């Protein structure tokens, strides 16, 4: 499944063109096509019945979030069985939508393990975090839009999405009468975006046409675990565009047997949960060291989790 979105509404036309050029034979759907109106009506009605202590604005936002999560799951399940590739057009922020899905999946894992709905959301959240969902983004070559696109790519990468690429369109054309300094400035924006998102394919429209992003999408986040001479495990994550976001890093546990089961990344307000492997679950996160687009979290082995092992090289995981 390829999610396609744009920073501006008119960009959806461009990103659709690019998606179809990238995936010949694909079928394009609007996310809203998967909307379950009965569920939405039921939710709206039940909000009143429940008397939820929320403001109208928050209530609308929450309702929209649930509606979009339900539609996203339906689109995912449809594409899993469809014979042709599916392009899902999303109006709004894809990272915010996927973050909502993943957070809700975690809530369900804690509060209702084993439930059918828990399994459905958890399944999709797992596929998303492992790079099984691709994303193509379009942005105009304008400073504020480029900033937003940078943050969104960083957020999507942290969530585990595979980034097919970023299309910059429409470009101002000489044939349309745009002066040279405007055209030059637009090209500089494209270069700057490519520099910010090192490793992510960034292409601009040419001669009024969107290019194909033919190369397979790359997993947005690169993760590695090493061990230093002091016995600490160093979890490193490289996320394109990370240095242009407000970053918070934390650890959280859903299992009291461990100090932490998840690494929590919050980039410009969007939260991504990264499941920790069994070794790191037996350790305690110390700090987050940020260098460029890489954040490294040292984990110190929790003595209580390593019975009979001294804090030396013998404590390495098997």
């Amino acid at each position, binding site marked *: 499944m390829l999610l396609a979105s744009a920073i501006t509404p*008119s960009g959806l036309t461009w990103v659709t063109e690019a998606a179809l050029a990238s995936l010949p034979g694909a079928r394009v759907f609007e996310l809203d096509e998967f909307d379950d109106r009965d569920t939405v009506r039921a*939710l709206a009605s039940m909000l009143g019945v429940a008397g939820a202590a929320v403001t109208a604005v928050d209530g609308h936002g929450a309702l929209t979030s649930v509606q979009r999560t339900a539609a996203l799951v339906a689109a995912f399940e449809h594409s899993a069985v469809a014979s042709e590739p599916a392009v899902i057009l999303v109006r709004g922020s894809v990272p915010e939508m996927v973050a909502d899905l993943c*957070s809700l999946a975690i809530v369900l894992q804690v*509060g*209702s393990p084993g439930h059918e709905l828990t399994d459905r959301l958890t399944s999709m959240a797992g596929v998303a975090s492992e790079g099984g969902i691709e994303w193509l983004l379009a942005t105009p070559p304008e400073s504020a839009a480029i900033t937003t696109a940078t943050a969104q790519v960083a957020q999507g990468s942290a969530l585990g999405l595979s980034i097919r690429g970023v299309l910059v369109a429409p470009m101002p054309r000489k044939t349309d009468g745009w*002066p040279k300094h405007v055209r030059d400035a637009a090209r500089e924006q494209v270069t700057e975006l490519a520099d910010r998102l090192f490793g992510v394919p960034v292409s601009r429209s040419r001669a009024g046409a969107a290019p194909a992003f033919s190369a397979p999408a790359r997993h947005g986040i690169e993760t590695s675990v090493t061990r230093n001479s002091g016995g600490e495990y160093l979890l490193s994550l490289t996320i394109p565009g990370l240095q242009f976001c407000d970053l918070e890093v934390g650890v959280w546990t859903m299992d009291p047997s461990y100090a932490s089961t998840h690494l929590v990344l919050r980039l410009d307000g969007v939260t991504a949960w990264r499941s920790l492997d069994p070794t790191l679950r037996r350790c305690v996160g110390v700090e987050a060291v940020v*260098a460029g687009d890489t954040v490294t979290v040292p984990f110190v082995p929790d003595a209580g989790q390593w019975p009979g092992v001294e804090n030396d090289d013998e404590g390495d995981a098997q």
Partner: protein
Amino acid sequence: MSDDIERPPWWLSGDGDPSNEDSSSDDSGASWDMASMLGMVTSMAGQWWASSGASQHASHDDPADNPDCVICKGLLVLGSATAAPAATELQDVQWLPIRRA
């Protein structure tokens, strides 16, 4: 030069857009607090799952008073904010100090 100043930003004008659709600025970028979202989404999800037996959550004001409710249990573990939508922190997340190398 004056023409450039009087014209709207070119990328909002729709020029070059094959559809010539309206290209007004997207207003969907406003994000909102995750903790509040979790609390409210979970509250509504509790309604959604009426068939699962979780519908009784609708009458639960304080999750701490209802440890047997699956939704309240989730809210307690995540520390979400059903009772306080204005909460700005994800409780129970241990935020780490950040050091810039």
